[in-house]
């Protein structure tokens, strides 16, 4: 008999409220119905009522972990409309900070997946090592999370030599820890038991459902905005796009761990040939008429910002599409067929950042009444959609 289990919105496995209504019969998941909108803040509407400079700090707070990716994307779009060129040193600093944020994000994610699997030691260790990156980010930008380093026209703080030397020490430790976790996750039988063959996403489905980031790269498709559409200093820095073709959570772990090692080498290369010069270009307050699309490879995947300006100092339209929203349809596909025990591991597999995924409508949903789960007209949205395919 099929029981309907609400996975979320309040659930120990979820850091943020999202609701998957899973139809389950004896441990097998039959269908999943996502429901977002629980922490919706209407950032896009608010962005239209603020100047570009104030928007920077609004866009930065879309997501706590990948805030730098959002701000880089937004400022690049506005710079494109203004068609100004930021100084090369600012490009390198943006690349360095983007890669440090990727390292910090992947360590956090590793701990989260470990916690979902019940492997609390991995959670404690990886969050301890994340402190190394956060300390470095604090020395560079003065803040651990929303760094407020980025502005339209460049970067607000320069990287001084003392910071570089502490950066190098930190990178060696991070590299050694990432290698250690790769060895643990590849050899530990319980970890493999819970991740190999779990949450499978075949390459065709990944392409069809427009998956992004490590989720699609773990299904063997090498799609990475840093290589396809290089921004900041990525066209001058040699790096490798990491793909695994295991299509399951185990290969997603491996992709992210390799990306940490790749980010370490990118930062080292960027630090060695950091061009000198100033880090910021003065920018007029009014942005001329025009529109721009900018893409950035956030730690979770391809991040898109669309800005349309009409000559005043407030944007007409700011469209933000965060990587997690693109990964939710593939996630529903992955969950079907697995067992209940796999749901948290698979959900954590795509590293959901719900705060990113839903920031379009206006009202926060404090008035959301309790979801009465025995609503008869609950349409099996995923079921109907699969029958159609």
């Amino acid at each position: 008999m099929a029981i309907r289990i609400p996975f979320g919105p309040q659930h120990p496995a979820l850091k943020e409220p999202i609701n998957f209504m899973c139809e389950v019969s004896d441990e097998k998941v039959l269908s999943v119905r996502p429901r977002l909108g629980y922490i919706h803040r209407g950032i896009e509407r608010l962005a239209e009522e603020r100047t570009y400079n104030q928007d920077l700090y609004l866009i930065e707070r879309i997501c706590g972990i990948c805030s730098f990716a959002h701000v880089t994307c937004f400022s690049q779009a506005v710079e494109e409309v203004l068609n100004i060129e930021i100084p090369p040193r600012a490009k390198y600093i943006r690349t360095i900070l983007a890669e440090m944020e990727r390292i910090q994000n992947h360590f956090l994610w590793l701990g989260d997946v470990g916690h979902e699997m019940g492997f609390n030691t991995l959670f404690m260790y990886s969050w301890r090592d994340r402190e190394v990156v956060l300390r470095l980010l604090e020395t560079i930008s003065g803040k651990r999370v929303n760094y407020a380093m980025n502005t339209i026209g460049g970067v607000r703080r320069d990287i001084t030599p003392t910071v570089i030397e502490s950066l190098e020490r930190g990178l060696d430790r991070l590299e050694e820890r990432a290698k250690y976790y790769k060895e643990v996750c590849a050899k530990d039988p319980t970890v493999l038991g819970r991740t190999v063959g779990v949450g499978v996403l075949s390459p065709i489905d990944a392409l069809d459902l427009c998956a992004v980031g490590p989720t699609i790269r773990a299904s063997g498709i090498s799609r990475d905005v840093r290589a396809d559409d290089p921004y900041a200093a990525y066209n001058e820095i040699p790096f490798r796009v990491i793909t695994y073709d295991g299509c399951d959570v185990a290969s997603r772990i491996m992709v992210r761990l390799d990306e940490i090692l790749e980010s370490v080498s990118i930062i080292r290369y960027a630090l060695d040939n950091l061009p000198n010069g100033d880090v910021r270009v003065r920018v007029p307050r009014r942005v001329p008429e025009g529109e721009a699309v900018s893409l950035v490879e956030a730690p979770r995947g391809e991040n898109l910002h669309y800005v349309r300006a009409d000559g005043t100092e407030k944007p007409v339209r700011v469209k933000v599409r965060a990587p997690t929203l693109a990964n939710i349809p593939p996630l529903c596909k992955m969950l079907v067929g697995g067992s209940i025990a796999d749901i948290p591991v698979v959900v954590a597999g795509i590293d959901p950042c719900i705060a990113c995924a839903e920031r379009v409508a206006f009202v926060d949903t404090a008035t959301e009444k309790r979801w009465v789960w025995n609503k008869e007209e609950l349409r099996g949205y995923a079921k109907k959609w699969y029958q159609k395919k």
Partner: protein
Amino acid sequence: MVPEEIVTLLQIFLFPGFLFLFFLAFFSEWVDRKLVAKFQNRYGPLYTGPKGILQPVADFFKLLAKEDIIPTATDKTVFSIVPILVLALSMAPLFLIPMIDFSALVWFEGDLIVIMSITTLVIIAMFMGAWASTDRFSTIGGMRVGLQMLGYEIPMTIAMIGPAISSKSLSVSGIVQSQAGGLWYAITQPLGFAIAMICLLAHLQKVPFDVPEAESEIVAGWMVEFSGKKLALLRLAKNFELVLAGSLLVSLYLGGPLGFWLPHPSFYFFLKLIVCIFIFSNLRALFARFRIDQVLMGAWKYLTPLALLQIILVVI
């Protein structure tokens, strides 16, 4: 009242009896939490008492003070009996295990069978508790408790029979006395020792086997709707089971309170109990959680044949 009865009454209530067991339960939970914290590079409980030793006691009284909600859709009588039943069942076998000298408070031929049947009863009581609270998560948790018991029950019983056969007695105290010659069964039957440890870990629902209360999947498993005093009793029962598992391992395989020259044998029992808890917390910090089908498949495919092999080795 002849002093003889008073002494036994005192023994039942005070020394190797209730009070000592309460202290032992809280102490073992503290040791477990501190060791796992140490493994994970953090402090663990700190502020209640010296080095946080009173934290389990504090948690217990805090829960007693909390509101005790009985959800409407539950079967009320069973729902309130289960915590008391589980606590009683997990405390009872402790009286059959020799802790302070070579024979337990009350021991008779065949008390090993009593212990094993009581451990099965505990699981059935948990299943009743899960079924009484009709919450979705607890029904699934209850099913998992039952499934897991089917998995580890057979290998555990076989692993416990091993020492009984070689010591030709079915009473725990008898087994302990037969190890007096210094040759503990852990050395003569290492395989049985390992299997007993894994199955006891599964019985305790500690991490690699904490599938029934996997908090990231089904919130708190079968205990999800218990609160206040009921939850306090259930958590206390879990501590007693930890002591039970530890002392079973100690008495069956590590020679119980057999000490060489120290004045009081209970000190030795204490030391070995801490070693067992060390092993449990080490395993707890080391593994990720298994899925229910992996637990069953692992138990039937590996543990049971190995346990049988151990019996064959013991018999020849």
